[in-house]
């Protein structure tokens, strides 16, 4: 089975570039050039140095002793939360900026949901002296103020999006429209493994540094270059794609993606696109998405703004359909419990997104000798309001148990 994208931009039946003609020349320019640029020595050197000196890579692969004891397997945490700006998003942004520079693009635009990708983009644009415009849904602006302020301080123009559901999917529409209207000097810096080909492949390649490091670090720590399990959360799916990437052809490694179930997959208030969706087209990509019988795309719901997307990257749709990876649904409250658990056992406050991956540890069968790597995609500073509300409200069972 081949898990790489084919020449036409498909992963099995998913992917492709279902775009209006107005985007064709931009997308084609990218599709024709990205591999040559990204595989060139000078690109690789510049990116490596940026990842090391600016992003802070390699990030640790830490053995989590107390979480392991609690879980009943040997759990390692891949610490993407320790990247500059607090999440894995910077890996992709660093690479795409270098790509944009080589394609003579002078203006960067991006969409953002929780604001992590927006902050990462604004950060690297400040570093490189490039003007940047970030599209963000009005609802997300209201619930993610600290990130909005960071973006503004970094010099980004933040455009509130009031169309549709006023969240990530609409911010993405608006970024695409802006690109249609400003095609020649602008690079659209997509933040996840979504959108038309070649974006899902570009972002997966740039995030693949996560699994590359996991391999190398396991050799040093465990004298083997593969874990038994890799677990990561999926919204659009970029940190999961990066965590799975170098293990896709290694059947010894079981891959698990944690989708955001929201209030539950049966409630209609969910973001579990693979587990509750059907095939369709969103943002130029054929994938699994949440829609009604007439093909109107539904709003997603998750406590985590970063997973609040009604579609999913085509690579994950393909891994799901082919059975190569398993996807499990984690509810809002399970994610909150897992966040508290990790905080009290390991002294790490994870992002709500990453807490979904931690919660998935309880949903898969683990043997005591097995090595499970959980990718902590980001840190939890931005989610303190949600955490405080949960602690002050009904209380969190996990915390009570540990405190006793």
């Amino acid at each position, binding site marked *: 089975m081949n898990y790489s994208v084919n020449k036409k931009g498909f992963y099995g039946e998913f992917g492709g570039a279902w*775009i209006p003609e*107005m985007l064709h*020349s931009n997308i084609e320019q990218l599709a024709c050039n990205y591999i040559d640029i990204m595989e060139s020595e000078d690109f690789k050197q510049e990116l490596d140095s940026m990842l090391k000196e600016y992003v802070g890579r390699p990030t640790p692969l830490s053995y989590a002793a107390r979480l392991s004891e609690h879980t009943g397997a040997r759990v390692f945490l891949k610490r993407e939360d320790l990247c500059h700006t607090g999440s894995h998003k910077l890996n992709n942004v660093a690479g795409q900026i270098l790509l944009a520079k080589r394609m003579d693009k002078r203006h960067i635009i991006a969409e953002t949901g929780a604001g992590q990708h927006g902050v990462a983009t604004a950060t690297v644009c400040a570093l490189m002296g490039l003007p940047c415009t970030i599209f963000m849904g009005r609802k997300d602006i209201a619930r993610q103020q600290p990130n909005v302020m960071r973006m503004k301080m970094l010099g980004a123009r933040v455009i509130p999006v009031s*169309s549709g559901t006023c969240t990530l999917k609409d911010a993405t529409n608006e970024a695409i429209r802006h690109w249609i*209207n400003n*095609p020649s000097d602008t690079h659209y810096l997509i933040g996840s493994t979504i959108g038309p080909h070649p974006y899902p492949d570009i972002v997966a390649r740039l995030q693949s540094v996560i699994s590359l490091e996991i391999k190398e670090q396991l050799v040093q720590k465990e004298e083997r270059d593969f874990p038994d399990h890799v677990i990561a959360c999926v919204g659009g799916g970029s940190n999961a794609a990066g965590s799975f990437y170098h293990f896709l052809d290694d059947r010894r490694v079981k891959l698990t993606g944690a989708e955001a179930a929201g209030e539950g997959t049966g409630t209609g208030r969910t973001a579990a696109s693979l587990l509750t969706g059907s095939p369709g087209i969103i943002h*130029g990509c054929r994938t699994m998405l949440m*829609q009604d019988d007439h093909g109107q*795309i539904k709003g997603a719901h998750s406590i985590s703004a970063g997973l609040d997307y009604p579609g999913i990257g085509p690579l994950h749709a393909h891994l799901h359909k082919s059975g190569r990876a398993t996807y499990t649904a984690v509810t809002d409250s399970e994610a909150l419990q897992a966040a508290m658990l990790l905080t009290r056992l390991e002294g790490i406050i994870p992002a709500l997104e990453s807490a979904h991956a931690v919660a998935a540890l309880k949903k898969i069968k683990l043997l005591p000798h097995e090595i499970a790597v959980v990718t902590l995609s980001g840190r939890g500073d931005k989610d303190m309001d949600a955490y405080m509300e949960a602690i002050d409200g009904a209380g969190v069972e996990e915390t009570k148990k540990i405190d006793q």
Partner: protein
Amino acid sequence: MKHMNALTNLLEKKRQNLLSVYFTAGYPHKDSTTEIISSLQDAGVDFLEAGFPFSDPLADGPVIQQTSQQAITNGMTLDCLLLQIEKARAGITIPIVLMGYLNPVMQTGMENFCRKANKAGISGVIIPDLPPDQYEARYLDLFKSYDLHMIFLVTPETSEQRIRNIDRLGSGFIYAVSSSSTTGRQDSFSDRQKQYLRRLQKMNLRNPVITGFGIHSRNTLRTAWENSSGAIIGSAYLKALMREGSGQKAITQLFGQLGLAGPV
């Protein structure tokens, strides 16, 4: 007797100063479709584009976004629109082209869609996010067998080779997007845009070229007519419809704006 495709008929007889109007079906009301079609037909518009709404119209500007959102709220669906047209069929002589995004069509199923469109007397289809290569590989035979034109867009950035390929695959007409932009954005046509339309004219394409995006005034209409076979008006008509509330009043106001006295 097999009835002739109405758009084929029209384009055999008339190849200049064509005027087409786009409307979002289901706006302002779910059942506005019949009144809008008959008022445009009575006003002498040459053919119509009936837009079926989509939640995420990424090639469209604010006017079509807003009307689409309202139409969805009103309960308009692709199947509902086809049924409305089929029911009103006896009174419709004007060719109708359907326009909308691929996802709603995929959920109905392409073959099912083609069968129903044919039954409703639809002449052709514009699906901006269906690329020509995918159409050729998956759907071309289907469209031919149901006598439906597939109409593709070209822009100033579309290469000559790609235009030739689109001319080969598509039929009915070629939709020349006046600039690389979303719908309803421009004020006037630049020399560069005129040159682009003239370049298309000189290519001796199999299909006539009709210009759309940004036509809203006497001036822009004339430019489109002088440099291509016709003009398509969308956002400007919908804006009039927003102000006026009825198809009849909206087209009268639009004609005034375009400097057209009465029936063209």
